[in-house]
């Protein structure tokens, strides 16, 4: 598999959301919520963006408390976490302010990304801590979750109203799947097989990558019968492609229609 980053429609959705954050009307709308089912490339896109912009990247934990959140935030900010909630909060404010100032000077976008934010969205105290940090330090927070984050945040209107935009990651369409195959698969794939991959994977990036590995394993040993068209359904008929994510059953490639 070629290690190429594929700019799918979800990538574009995320970049549009960042633009909306920059051009927000109300100054206190500093929250961006990214959600979608697992395996749609949220972490890949977010980690690439965070690595590029040197953003703070935290992964929420099941048992996270406000105190633990501040400890991880300060550690990432290279500040020794002091004891006491108030001291930690003030230290985080100061460090975030400095980082935001440095980012402004160098023209970078600065934000704190919290992955697996579903753990946060269920806990009122944590939600309020994030809101306080975003409001007082003036630093945008990007909350990344798996579908329920939007509903959970609706319980906290004071937070939901501060969300500049909700970005929902959607499964890839056929165009995106073909783009994926052309960018990452080292074996040329025909249109009929691409359509089946789209159907079998449901447009989930994780499954598409698994399908690419299966196609490559077969294609390296069995070159396509029509080199210009690429590997077709008939070529791969009866071969295992992926396992269904719901049932766990193996999905085999059918013969040509």
């Amino acid at each position, binding site marked *: *598999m070629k*290690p190429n980053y594929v700019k799918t429609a979800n990538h574009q959705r995320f970049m549009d959301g960042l633009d909306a954050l920059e051009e927000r009307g109300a100054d206190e709308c500093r929250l961006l919520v990214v959600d979608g089912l697992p395996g749609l490339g949220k972490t890949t896109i977010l*980690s*690439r963006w*965070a690595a*590029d912009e*040197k953003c703070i*990247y935290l992964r929420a934990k099941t048992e996270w408390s406000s105190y633990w959140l501040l400890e991880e935030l300060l550690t990432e900010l290279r500040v020794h976490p002091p004891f006491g909630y108030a001291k930690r909060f003030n230290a985080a404010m100061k460090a975030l302010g400095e980082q935001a100032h440095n980012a402004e000077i160098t023209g970078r976008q600065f934000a704190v990304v919290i992955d697996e934010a579903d753990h946060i969205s269920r806990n009122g105290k944590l939600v309020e801590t994030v809101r306080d940090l975003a409001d007082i330090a003036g630093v945008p927070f990007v909350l990344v979750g798996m579908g329920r984050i939007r509903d959970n945040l609706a319980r906290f209107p004071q937070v939901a109203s501060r969300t500049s935009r909700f970005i929902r990651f959607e499964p890839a369409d056929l165009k995106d799947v073909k783009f994926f195959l052309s960018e990452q698969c*080292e074996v040329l794939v025909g249109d009929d097989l691409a359509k089946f991959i789209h159907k079998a994977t449901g447009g989930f990036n994780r499954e598409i990558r698994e399908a690419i590995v299966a196609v*490559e394993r077969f294609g390296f040993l069995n070159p396509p019968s029509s080199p210009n068209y690429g590997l077709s359904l008939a070529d791969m008929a009866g071969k295992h492609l992926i396992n269904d994510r719901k049932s766990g059953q193996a999905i085999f490639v059918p013969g040509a229609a």
Partner: protein
Amino acid sequence: MTISGETHMNSILYALDGHCKTLSDLCEELNLSNRQISDGAAKLVIQGYAERISVGCFQLTTGGRKAVADGCTLTSGPNAPHAKAKAPKGATLRQRAWNAMRILQRFTLADLQMTAAREGDKNPENSLNKFCGQLVKAGYLRVNRKRVQGSKPTSNGFLKYQLVNCTGEIAPSYRANAAAIYDHNTGEEVSL
């Protein structure tokens, strides 16, 4: 044209040899303006070669007399060794890769390339492979025992790395001369 004090430091140093002189004496002798003499003499005082006896009157210190005896040519700096190594500036490939390592924690070279490489990077695979190798030797990364299977029939699989020593946000630099990794976050040098 404005001439900085450093330009005249040497002529003032040699003109002061053995005598205490006033600004006007030096102006006349060296054919320089009051400002030029004042700036040059101030630099000599800062560097410890001359001392101010009274307002506008200078004489050489022991160090100044020794410098004259040795025939030294003074320069504007450096006055002391650099206390800290200069951290690389900007989002270089290695810095982006380090950021990605801190986020991903466990990764293959392909994951790293997908997250950190950009269009303009020259041969990112090779560069990242070298960087990971250096970090493994220095103890920042650990190689997992089990390889990730490759799709090519003859593939040996791909190494999976794990970040085990995250010291901060600045990427460690490789020093070829010392064959060592320098950590800008801790100020420590780790020999490879």
